[in-house]
């Protein structure tokens, strides 16, 4: 049973990866972003908690459960495609490489065949890389952050509707993670919000606004090294590859609960 479960760390890493690549709304003041984002996070946390009670109190073969699983299956597929598209874009733009397409069959095979428990250790290691990467990022941008850029008298509230980022992990917690960790898992929306807020704050402090998010990484400079954006993007790319395999595993778990899957599909290296 333990082999069939991801840890909350793995799910959190997946959320972090998606949130870091999610675009920020243009021209929104930071304070408004903070308020709206916080409200969205609370709403998503409530939704996540509701989904926990839904999955736990529901007979798995009942029609509502099957319908929900099918809908979430498509959501996960859509998220997988989005993550792949973003990762491929990074590979093309930053590294001039199409290798991700070439490695796609391997990633799909690994995500499908390997049991979820195998991905938990890589998730822990990648979190260390993420933390180190964030520290490095901060070290290179701290000197460029100016408080006065947070306030721009010209900035008006945007007219586009506010988009709440919904990820499949929020709604699938009981199916993905062990029961003991569900209490922590329902607060994952705050992690996504935190990532977006940090990004928005950094953009506002460094640029004031009006630049694409990747320019924040390109603005990095410290000492002998004039650029570190490629390394930071590599860390994100590694997390994106993890996310693709993670979503494959989730899809397999979910599909296995909708349709009976053949056993013995674990692979021992």
């Amino acid at each position, binding site marked *: 049973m333990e082999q069939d479960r991801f840890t909350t760390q793995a799910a959190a890493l997946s959320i972090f990866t998606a949130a870091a690549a999610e675009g920020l709304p243009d021209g929104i003041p930071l304070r408004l972003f903070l308020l709206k984002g916080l409200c969205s996070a609370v709403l998503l946390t409530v939704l996540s908690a509701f989904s926990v009670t839904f999955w736990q109190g529901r007979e798995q073969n009942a029609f509502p459960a099957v319908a929900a699983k099918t809908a979430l299956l498509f959501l996960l597929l859509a998220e997988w495609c989005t993550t792949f598209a973003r990762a491929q874009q990074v*590979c093309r733009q*930053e590294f*001039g490489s199409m290798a991700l397409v070439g490695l796609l069959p391997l*990633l799909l095979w690994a995500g499908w065949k390997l049991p979820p428990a195998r991905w938990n250790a890589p998730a822990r290691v990648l979190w260390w890389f993420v933390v180190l990467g964030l520290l490095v990022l901060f070290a290179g941008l701290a000197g460029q952050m100016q408080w006065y850029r947070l306030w721009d008298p010209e900035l008006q509230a945007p007219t586009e509707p506010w988009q709440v980022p919904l990820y499949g992990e929020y709604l699938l917690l009981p199916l993905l993670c062990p029961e003991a960790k569900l209490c922590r898992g329902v607060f994952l929306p705050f992690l996504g919000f935190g990532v977006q807020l940090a990004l928005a704050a950094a953009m506002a402090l460094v640029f004031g606004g009006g630049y694409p998010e990747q320019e924040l990484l390109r603005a990095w400079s410290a000492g002998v090294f004039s650029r570190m954006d*490629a390394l930071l993007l590599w860390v994100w790319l590694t997390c994106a*590859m993890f996310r693709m395999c993670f979503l494959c595993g989730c899809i397999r778990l979910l599909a296995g609960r909708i349709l009976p899957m053949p056993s013995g599909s674990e692979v021992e*290296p």
Partner: protein
Amino acid sequence: MQQLSRDLAENLAALDALFGASADYYSKSITIYHCRGNIVLFDGMASLESLWQLLLEGASRHTLPPEQCTGPQVFRLILQDSVFPAESQPVEDMEDLIRRLTAGMAVLLLDGCPKGIAFSVQGLKFRSVEEPEGEGNLRGSREGFADLLRINLSLLRRLIRSGDLVQEVAQADTPAKTEYGVCYCRSVADPAMVQRVKQLLAAAKPEMLLDSSYFMPWLLPGRWRLFVPVSYTQRPAVAAAKLCEGRILILVNGSPSALVLPALFCENFECLDDYASTAVFSSFLRLLKYAAFYLTVFLPGVFVCLAVYLPELIPPQLLYKIEAAEKATPLPLFAEMLLVMLLLEVIREAGLRMPQSLGHSVSLVAALILGDAAIATGLMSTPVIFVASITSIAVFVTPALYESATLLRLGVVLAAGLAGPPGLAAAFFALLLALSGTGIMGVPYLTPHPFPQNPLSEDGVIRRDYRRLSRRHFVIWQKEGGTKWNRIASPRRRRR
């Protein structure tokens, strides 16, 4: 199984048929207590002097009246009522007879008795107990295992003087009937796992058994494996320490290398000296070893990837030297790196296999002159040779991981050279997945690997004071809540 006959001549005829053509087969007719008998042994394995000495000594102390000198009576007298230091278990069949003869014992066959008496008068010539070459250390025992199983078992018995140590010997199912020993400490080893190991070894059918590692495909079935969750040692001190942690040791007759299972990944970065040095220095060395391992695996690939795809991460002074070097050589950077790595492997292998008298000079010629000549002719460049040399040396900081590190290094270079940063990321994942998927008997290879679960554990990447570590005894079969290996709450001390 052919039983021994009551008729001495029949037994001798059977032995003659088997070993008559062998020059070391020795058979001597004797009369003992008025009973005809034959001493059989293999010359060079049993000591004739010891044999005659003990026979004469024993024979002079006791006599029997002639009417009581039948074969079975003499047999009973010698085995049970005399001072002859015979083996307690008599020889009952031909197979047992051959087994004991090939172990260096002498066997006394008596006319009219269907059993033989074995005497432990081994006088085998064997390599003495020396310091092993592969496991160097500054402090601690210098003894190493010898080639004979019995001697190795005695070395272990000398170190673990409690009644806990169990050393079971069996014969492998091979044409050569090689002996092997399974050692464990009764109070800390998992009985179910010990039983399982014994069953697996009994069921194993290797074609030849020359070393304990030959058992691996039966202990760990699987198609391919980068990391093996067992370790090898030639030091009785290390083996004894691992036995006290509940592990199982397998020794094979004819090889000084002991197989220890289960093993953990973090143990590859520890050694006998760790607990003999101060905690600070040991911690420093462990960090160095971790760094050396990851350096040897990733440095060539990262170098190629950075130089080609991410040049801004290299200081400009170094970057232009790399570019100038690549411009001067006919091959692209990654192909050159691959070539140099393979060349270094060839040099290493050649240095290992050739006679020692030539080994040093040939290595010198190959490494220095070849390298110089390659640069002078413009076939290879100095940055590449430098990086490849560093990795070749760094791998020997953790010799136990040599095979895995070499294969991984090649894979990382290929991945980074052909696929760039995505390839490097994929190689990184492959390493992580290979580590996390390895385990034996329910003990995961990475647990209790502290990084990154608990990097500041007491005996992980860094080591605390030994007095503090000694407060809690570490056993490899950690159980929590009655189930095996759910999670390690607090990583414990490991002894060497």
